[in-house]
């Protein structure tokens, strides 16, 4: 049982939990994830660790309510216990001093990119960060990203904060105006990561992305998280979650993300509220 000690609603449908998990907090590295199971009937949900405090034994999880399981999870409160948390899973981000790196987080993807950004900064890199969201209301971890970056750029779809446009628009400017970029680290929705990879490819800039695939066990046992990388099939849970964005087959990734579209609707419909969100409104 894993106690929730802090809960913050960061943005609409975007929540942060600090969870007491000392063994995981002692061990986790930037880029790694955990899998949680909220209760007996719950799915195993993979979530990247957004932050950790080794001395207090805490891990920070940030998630977007996108379906039944994450909506149910968002109903949990401080002092509630998550039934199962397992980790750290996956490979840690390789952190090296490369020179000039650009860290990009889109939407909830800012959460996993934050500890990697911090580590890259600590390793002595010049770090330019770009974070993007639909609008100002959906921007998260702005201060935290600012604190670990040499410069922080913000892009919103509607221009309500930072510049109007996409993270790729800003990345293009950086590449075209300032020259040398040694690494791009991009985490966000599949279309964003794909667009970043397509942008950097002609320039030959090494681009790493983090694949938030469907998973079950998270230990290499089931293969639900298959990602086509170059001519190989890799498992995101044990070989990743980070892969070379230029080698990922984005069509297959997008297709596999839709595997359970129909069942996701069924699960929503089976909620006590009948899927219209009443259960959450009552709670509020």
């Amino acid at each position, binding site marked *: 049982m894993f106690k929730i000690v802090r809960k913050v609603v960061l943005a609409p449908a975007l929540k942060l939990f600090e969870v007491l998990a000392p063994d995981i907090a002692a061990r986790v590295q930037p880029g790694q994830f955990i899998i949680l199971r909220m209760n007996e009937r719950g799915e195993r949900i993979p979530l990247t660790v957004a932050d950790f405090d080794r001395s207090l034994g805490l891990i920070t999880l940030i998630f977007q309510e996108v379906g039944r399981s994450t909506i149910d999870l968002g109903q949990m409160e401080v002092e509630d216990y998550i039934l199962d948390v397992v980790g750290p899973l996956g490979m840690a981000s390789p952190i090296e001093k490369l020179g000039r790196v650009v860290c990009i987080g889109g939407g909830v993807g800012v959460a996993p990119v934050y500890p990697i950004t911090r580590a890259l900064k600590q390793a002595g890199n010049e770090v330019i960060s770009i974070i993007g969201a639909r609008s100002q209301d959906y921007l998260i971890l702005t201060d935290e990203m600012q604190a670990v970056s040499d410069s922080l750029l913000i892009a919103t779809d509607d221009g309500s904060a930072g510049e109007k446009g996409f993270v790729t628009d800003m990345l293009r400017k950086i590449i075209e105006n300032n020259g040398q970029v040694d690494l791009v680290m991009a985490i966000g929705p599949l279309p964003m990561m794909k667009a970043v990879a397509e942008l950097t490819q002609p320039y030959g800039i090494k681009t790493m992305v983090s694949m938030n695939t469907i998973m079950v066990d998270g230990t290499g046992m089931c293969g639900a998280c298959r990602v086509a990388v170059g001519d190989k*099939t890799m498992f995101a849970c044990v070989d990743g979650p980070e892969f070379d964005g230029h080698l990922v087959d984005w069509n297959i990734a997008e297709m*596999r993300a839709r595997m359970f579209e129909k*069942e996701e609707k069924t699960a929503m419909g089976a909620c006590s509220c009948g899927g219209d969100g009443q259960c959450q409104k009552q709670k509020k």
Partner: protein
Amino acid sequence: MSEAKKIRPPRQSMPLQDAQERIKHFTEVALGYTEEQALLEASRCLQCKKPLCVEGCPVEVDIPAFIKLIEEKDYAQAIAKIKEKNNLPGICGRVCPQESQCEKQCIVGKKGQPVAIGRMERFAADWTVANNLQFDKVQPTGKKVAIVGSGPSGLTAAADLAMLGHEVIVMEALHIPGGVLVYGIPEFRLPKSIVRQEIDNIKKLGVEIQTNMVVGKINTVDELLESGYDAVFVGTGAGLPYFMDIPGENYNGVYSANEFLTRTNLMKGYLFPEYLTPIRIGPKVAVIGAGNVAMDSARTALRLGATESTIVYRRSEKEMPARSEEIEHAVEEGVQFALLTSPVEIIGDENGRVKAMVCQEYELGEPDNSGRRRPVPIADSEYIMEIDTVIMAIGQGPNPLIAQTTPDLQINKNGNIIADESTGQTNKPGLFAGGDIVTGAATVILAMGAGKKAARAIHEYLSKI
């Protein structure tokens, strides 16, 4: 008993749920002997002075002795006799391939049907569960052992070591213990309540089980050995699914058998959306392979609502590696067989969902290394099989996590840990291994046998340090 030669009753057949009824749900297919049947079956045993059946048992259960106790209606002593050697009798009674082990050696079987040892083992185990027997703890030795993995080998090693007085902590990666017994073998063949009860009994021996512990990630074997554990046993199984490496395998609708069975069994996907893990199958399901895992997958597919469930296998019926009982049950339930056939490509629709397989036909050639006749593709025999779901059940490899994080541990070219067959000793002092992680994918009972041998060797090792 009179001097006159006893008239031996026929081998008691296992009461089964009706095939057409049972494919509608996941409740257990084999219902178990009644007391009357168990007594009749027990009377068939010759009580051989030199029982060959015991030699056929990887964990050396004193088979004639427990059968005699059943015959005497002393069921508590019967199960105690079994438990001297085997702490998972309810599981073994159900899933052991007795026909190729103890029952294969049975003298009664030389002229007729062998004594149904497995079914009586199950009867005794189920009787104990119903009557909630307790077992005593023993004097502690002060030695501490970590067991990595809570599958058949790990549980057996844990129970044996606890009975010898050692402190035993089992570390399991998943959220419930049991390994393949809970994620792999379906409810209708091995009810999870049985697994839970047998594990609870092992806990009563003093064994502690920690779930959500991925050794290799949260800690390493070396750290365990440095932090107060006197020995470590690795029984992490064959958890790495193989795919065929053919075009189209990443389309939606292609599952590894591990994923398909884990979603269904461990996550209770068959109860979706009451349980929230989904499992999707189309009306037409093809299962590639013909081992026990393939049979489990094909039969599970029927229960999830498939209208056609077909085993696709590149050799012939004779070479199918599954237990004959599993094949019979699959046939009874309506599983179809496309033999001497194997897919060469999977075809998807515009949404990336499986819609067909290109299959190739095979014929059998000369025997290969395994002694089975090698399947040889027939030229220009390709044809299209329309299909909605493909389940790859062509075997599993060793999970590489322990090997990757234990730098000086010796492994073979397949990634299996190299360990002494009779002791489980690896090249590292204090580190033992057994079960599928050493042998490659095999059976529950062979893994248990390895756990038992390792427990013996670990005990010896602990007595010396």
